[in-house]
């Protein structure tokens, strides 16, 4: 591996790199909203799975009892995790709002 000399890195190249890294506040907001939406939809998927399995069991379908129980526990854990994340986010927001200007 040959090490390139420092003179090859021109100042214009360095400036172009930093321009690419800058994201607008709108983009940052969108990515946060999207990741939040994804997390909530995953929680919803778990709840829906648990609901469907319980329905199948009630209707006498071909589903194992322990699968229903495990699905409901997984949904409960995912929900609790999301609630904790929400608590932390709100706590951080309130911390920032408490800062005197």
């Amino acid at each position: 591996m040959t090490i390139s000399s420092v003179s090859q890195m021109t100042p214009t190249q360095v400036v172009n790199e930093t321009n690419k890294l800058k994201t607008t506040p709108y983009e940052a907001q969108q990515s946060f909203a999207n990741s939040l939406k994804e997390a909530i939809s995953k929680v919803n998927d778990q709840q829906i799975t648990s609901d469907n399995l319980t329905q199948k069991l009630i209707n006498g379908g071909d589903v194992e009892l322990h699968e229903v129980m495990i699905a409901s526990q997984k949904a409960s854990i995912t929900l609790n995790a999301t609630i904790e994340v929400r608590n932390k986010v709100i706590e951080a927001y309130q911390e920032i709002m408490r800062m005197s200007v």
Partner: protein
Amino acid sequence: MSIFHGMNTTASALTAQRLRMDVISSNMAGMDTTRAKQVNGQWEPYRRKTVTFTAQEGQFSKFFNAALGKNAKSGVGNGVKVTQIKEDTETPFKLVYDPTHPDANADGYVNMPNVDPLKEMVDLMSATRSYEANVTVLNANKSMLTKALEIGR
């Protein structure tokens, strides 16, 4: 490797033990069945069934990540599955002397199923204990995850 990997492994074990329990129920129920199925026009008595377990293979993505050197936890197992429900052809049928039975052969002997109730009861206890142990593991797994959510509360 998700946080639910341990729970999925235990779920597969519970399913396998449940299936084993169903096979034991079938064996106990068919203990006196002299006419189970027709073979060459002759009625054959019920044959005892056995299950064989094998370790479940991981998904392809796990092997791929392990080959790339990414996943440190690729050595953890993936659970168990039932490969086959085999009929026990090695144990011979029990011969019981009963000339009045409709299925008695020329010498007055009846072929009874090769199901030993003692063996089935031991299998039943083993399957039950295994099921309970797996449920305990599942509960411990869940309580660990719940405890982890209490960090920083």
